[in-house]
């Protein structure tokens, strides 16, 4: 691989991970507010389909994204009604919604399969695109991908540097405390879950209107589950979550490229590799809190065990303490 190829690959990783960034940032916000939205996988498919269909009919990309965000919010609203309003298991509702939305996308998207549609236009940034190295990697994309670059610091800043972000995190840590301090817990949770839903919706449309430019049955099935796992890997911290997205993007690029480079290895290995890696990463992330694994590590030779322990301790981040537990007004 020459330098040129490396640059192209790097740019492809950044672009390929953009939808994941939107989805994971949406889910990070949702989970920081104390709600697990397990419906990601189906929701992304449904909004991908809707965004694409609206784009086809209106010939307007923006309207496509608006519709997709709307679908994301609508599904999030259903989740909120059942899990926050009626206080049923968020896992159960999320899972049902994931399946339901997947089938809905297949059923309603029937007539849009492999239809030509609209796409986000490329928009290299003048001047910056000519920068050596960085220009190629960062500045020859389109608006959506630039937005994904900005989204990560924005979400981080909001969560960790603003008054509203502090309140948001309190909702996920101990909603009763927030309530005792006069915060309207349920309306705020609803708001953030809807916001997260909108971002996930945009993520879905990012596939059909940008990255893959077209719709077919279940073509991004599995992505939503990966996104959920990346949020855990990232310890609910936007920077680390983004790192997870790019790591995953790199793996995908590597997989497609390697198929040509290493033809002897069956292609299925590469298709499955991300999921195997997902499990492995979750094992590592949880290793810090696992006594059995800790004992193994302690038995490693001293120069090895110390750094391993430190890395694992850093990886291990506690979930928001009240994640998944519906708030009940005292």
């Amino acid at each position, binding site marked *: 691989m020459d330098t040129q190829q490396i640059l192209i690959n790097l740019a492809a990783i950044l672009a390929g991970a953009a939808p994941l960034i939107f989805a994971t940032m949406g889910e990070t916000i949702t989970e920081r507010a104390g709600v697990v939205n397990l419906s990601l996988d189906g929701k992304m498919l449904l909004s991908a389909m809707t965004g694409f269909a609206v784009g086809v009919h209106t010939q307007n990309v923006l309207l496509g994204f608006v519709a997709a965000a709307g679908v994301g919010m609508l599904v999030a609203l259903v989740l909120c009604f059942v899990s926050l309003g009626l206080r049923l298991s968020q896992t159960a509702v999320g899972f049902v919604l994931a399946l339901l939305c997947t089938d809905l996308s297949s059923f309603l998207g029937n007539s849009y399969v492999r239809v030509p549609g609209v796409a986000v236009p490329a928009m290299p940034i003048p001047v910056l695109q000519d920068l050596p190295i960085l220009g190629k990697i960062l500045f020859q994309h389109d608006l959506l991908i630039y937005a994904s670059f900005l989204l990560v610091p924005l979400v981080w800043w909001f969560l960790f540097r603003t008054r509203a972000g502090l309140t948001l995190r*309190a909702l996920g*840590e101990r909603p009763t405390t927030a309530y*005792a301090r006069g*915060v309207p817990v349920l309306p705020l949770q609803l708001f953030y879950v809807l916001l997260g839903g909108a971002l996930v919706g945009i993520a879905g449309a990012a596939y059909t209107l940008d990255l893959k430019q077209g719709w077919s049955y279940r073509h991004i099935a599995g992505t939503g589950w990966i996104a959920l796992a990346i949020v855990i890997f990232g310890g609910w911290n936007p920077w680390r979550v983004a790192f997870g997205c790019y790591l995953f993007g790199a793996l995908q690029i590597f997989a497609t490229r390697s198929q040509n480079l290493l033809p002897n290895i069956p292609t299925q290995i590469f298709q499955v590799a991300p999921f195997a890696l997902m499990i492995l990463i979750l094992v590592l992330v949880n290793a810090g809190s696992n006594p059995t694994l800790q004992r193994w590590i302690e038995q490693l030779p001293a120069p090895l065990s110390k750094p391993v322990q430190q890395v694992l301790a850093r990886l291990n981040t506690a979930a928001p303490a009240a994640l998944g537990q519906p708030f009940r007004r005292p």
Partner: protein
Amino acid sequence: MDVQIRNLTKTFGSLRANDAISLSFAAGNIHGILGENGAGKSTLMKLLAGFLQRDSGEVLLDGQPASLHNPAASLAAGVGMVHQDPMDVPAFSALENFFCASPRSALPSLAVARQRLTQLNQQFGFTVAPDQPLARLTVGQRQQLEIMRLLACGVKVLILDEPTTGITAAQKTALFAALRRLTAQGETVLFVSHKLDEVADLCQTVSILRSGRVVGAQLPMPQPQAELLKLMFGQAGAPAPPRQAAAPPAPASAVPVWQLHQITVREGALSVPNLTLSLPRGCVVGLCGLDGSGQQLLLRLLAGRLHPERGRLLLHGTDVTRAPYRAFRAAGVEYLPADRMHDGVIGAMTLTEHLLLTSEQHGLIINRADARTQAETAIAAYNIKATPDTPLVSLSGGNQQRAMLALLSAECTGLLFDQPTRSLDVVSARAIWQRLLHRRAAGTTIVFASADFDELLAYSDLLLVFFAGRVSRLLPCPTMTAARLAELIGGVGFAEVAAHGG
């Protein structure tokens, strides 16, 4: 700010927690609210703070009707409450907690919040470092933080619910000084307690609740103690727990229940190093110390739920250092945790089902009829207010505690009990101890942790004091006084009683 309460009523199901309460509190004073556990003090305060919603009645602040239908409304009206279990966010730093959900007008930015926190710390002689994670603060410091936060938010009526539970003597002194200073500034302080001496020390008036009703309204202090006790507990008067007769000394030849040889036990940041002691048969050992000084580590070590890092642990003379919890259970050791619903019992299951789960000999197929009969027997024997088919979660605290005792095996030789009577009323607490002493008489050794000095002194044969991860030697209870215990817990003169390592 003057507070007037008129006919305030709050019911939980069939329980009238507050029954037509009418009281009034003048501004610039500290008002004590006395009552035994379950008298309705906390409910009343939570109604004022908007944390609970009243069924009927009204509250006037400075003569104006106030809505107080949620905490936001109460805070806006100037009423703030420090809950018994401080309402804060353990994952945040002290400063973040101070800043979280504060009104923008009071604390416009984090920088201002930092200044204000430092300033309030100085003003009241409190010791909360802004960047300290909350998990590293003591209960007393978390309470200080809450008080400062409420003051920064402009609260005019400050409610404190049992603020002296779990704090050091020094913190208590600082707290009382701060409260007196606040009233000098015109704040109204409502001080909820069940401890007479504290109310006598601090308050200008006292109001007494019993079973959800007012039995004494803003009586000026001082009042004769006997009078207050009569109001709190009715004609029966105060139950002074009789000092229990000491256990007959075990024969010297008998094998101790537990023997610890140079044991170090650790969990997270907390560790208890180099512990050597032996606990004889048929005695009650009380563990005392500030919250999180290592009492729970020892309890769980003795129960086999936590393994020592170093050292040897013998149970009835057998080495169980690395044995699983099951082996401890098989040897007759049982552990009763403080949080019943967390890891004590299975809330959704009934007493019958619990008896099925704990029955030692059973076949493949369950015998429900048999277990029901057992449950009925247990309900009668332990005076549990339930049917065999009531899910335990719907029982009251005292009944849950008795149910947990009813599940103990008859062959229990070692019982580890974390906070046996926390949040129970006096009668329930006595009933629990009656059972426990009965077990002791049968030869069971009981080790319990408690924050209540009276309980520790009344029921223990031997005491172990924990201070900052260090443990005293076994101290005979009859030579101990509450004052001395308080000093030891705070580390005063601890070196004299400290166990000599090795």
